């Protein structure tokens, strides 16, 4: 008897809690709180807004909001008796879908960047696959549009895949469940040196960053251990006219601030070493990402649109909405 009474006493708060979670006022209040958080994030400086959205408080608020919706959806599913009600149910259900997808992404998404010079083969994160950058097509003006930024790549996985594909800046390729997309490209002139007491000789393609081809010169600090002396470089893809017609490289040596201009086929001497500029290739940066919750998020988005249309559009076309 006393045990039954205890169960009864415990049952009341649970019922109350469920009732509170399923209440429309609670849901609306939570929506208001979410709105305030979003508003705060919109007006705060970027760093503060990021901190806000990564904070535990915000996560608790989102979790509570989703819990309110989930309880409400479960309890109200049996009340769905018309297309309009189904639309409303789906619209709210979509928030749960998007939230679950977002949580999956936060917990298990992966992201990485790598660079490759034309002709270079690099291993992809996760192991097993390699990507060879065959040729990069930078953008060119086609009429009034920039077009054509793409990279021809060979994706090789022993025994599974050996394909040549084109990666565009907004069209990734899928490799082993990951998306590989072209992020940016730049020029990589070859810089070689020789000389010194031991007749040292080495060279390397030097990555010079560009932002979508608009910025055609970029400082890059170079120095030991790759080269005998520290120097800065400004690369000019062209002095005038189309890219790569007449590339040149301005070098400033840090030791004595001496400057020199390098061109393909010409060499300069400094500090007992001879420097020469070779051919120019492109390099490209790729982003590799894996977002397992993405499908759920996008499904949720479309469910939201479909639900909103089914629930609300009839009211627009109804005379007494």
């Amino acid at each position, binding site marked *: 008897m006393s045990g039954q009474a205890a169960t009864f006493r415990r049952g009341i708060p649970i019922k109350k809690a469920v009732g509170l979670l399923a209440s*429309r006022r609670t*849901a*609306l209040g939570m*929506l*208001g709180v*979410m*709105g305030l958080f*979003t*508003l705060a*994030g*919109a007006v705060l400086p*970027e760093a503060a*807004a*990021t901190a806000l*959205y990564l904070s535990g408080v915000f996560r608790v608020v989102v979790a509570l909001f989703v819990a309110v919706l989930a309880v409400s959806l479960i309890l109200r599913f049996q009340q769905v008796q018309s297309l309009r009600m189904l639309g409303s149910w789906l619209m709210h259900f979509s928030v749960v879908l998007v939230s679950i997808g*977002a949580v999956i992404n936060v917990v298990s998404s992966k*992201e990485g960047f790598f660079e490759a010079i034309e002709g270079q083969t690099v291993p992809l994160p996760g192991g097993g696959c390699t990507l060879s950058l065959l040729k990069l097509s930078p*953008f060119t*003006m086609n*009429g*009034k*549009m*920039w*077009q*054509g*930024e793409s990279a021809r790549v060979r994706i090789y996985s022993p025994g599974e895949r050996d394909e040549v594909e084109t990666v*565009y*800046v*907004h*069209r*990734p390729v899928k490799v082993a469940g990951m*998306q590989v*997309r072209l*992020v940016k490209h730049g020029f990589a002139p070859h810089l070689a040196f020789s000389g010194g007491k031991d007749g040292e000789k080495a060279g390397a393609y030097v990555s010079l960053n560009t932002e*979508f081809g608009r910025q055609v010169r970029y400082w890059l600090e170079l120095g030991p251990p790759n080269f005998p002396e520290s120097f800065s470089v400004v690369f000019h893809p062209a002095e005038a006219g189309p890219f790569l017609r007449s590339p040149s490289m301005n070098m400033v040596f840090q030791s004595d601030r001496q400057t020199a201009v390098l061109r393909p086929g010409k060499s300069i001497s400094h500090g007992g070493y001879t420097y020469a500029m070779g051919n120019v290739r492109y390099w490209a940066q790729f*982003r590799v*990402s894996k977002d397992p919750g*993405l499908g759920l*998020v*996008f499904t949720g*988005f*479309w469910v*939201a*649109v479909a639900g*909103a*249309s089914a629930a*609300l*559009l009839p*009211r*627009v076309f109804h005379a*007494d*909405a």
Partner: protein
Amino acid sequence: MQMLELISLGMTLACYAAAFILAVLALVVKKPRNLAPAFTVAVVGAVSHTISLASRGFGFWAPPFITYFESVSFGSWLAMVGLLYFSLRRKEIRPVLAVLCPVLLLLMGSAMFTHREFEPLSPALQSWWLVVHILFAMLSFACMAVAFGIAVLLLFFPGARWTPSAKTADSVIFKSIILAFIFQMVMLVSGSIWANQAWGRYWGWDPIETFSLVTLILFGIAIHLRVQFGWKGKKMAWFAIAGFLCTVYGIWGVPYFAQSIHLYQGPMGTGGIKP
């Protein structure tokens, strides 16, 4: 083509200004029937506006809502066409011209001082999602502009003979909020898909994204309050005004106050340099 665009744009501004003056005169002399000239001039302005946008679109062979200036112009055109369409069906909405014309003039006038040159689209922007994304943002703005005009009449001129009846005003405001909510949702969804393609992420708490979400939540709250709790009339009118201000700030205001990844074509051109 550029000359045609300029001439038609100038004519548009002149017509909207004339429509505003004629509408105010008609309302001051308390003869709402005299709104017909204002309506006709506004129609001429809208036709001229259409020519201006078409000449720009065909001139650069790109949708005429890519740059900051173009989006303001296109959004204003949609708002005016929407108002004229509803005014044809319900004549009592015509006094909204007296509210909407100065707002659109102000928006377009301020946009005239921004970077107006067309700039080629960078590869990240070359997607059909761009058209869907911006088009639905502008549709959302147009709906809220009409709702804003009616809300102003309802709130600030409640006893005037020419103010639309409370029932009509309430119905148009609520329907506008519903449409704006759906359009805003499609805008956010298409933007997310496009962002995932172009930048590799579907959501980044960027200021413009975040403010669009604020606006969507505001519309959501308004719809819930109406459907669940029966809020009507002036309460919904205040929501319409808040929704309109949020929409305008979210689309065109944020670039003036915050750095955003959206600013390929900000008020000062590519790069979105702060004004």
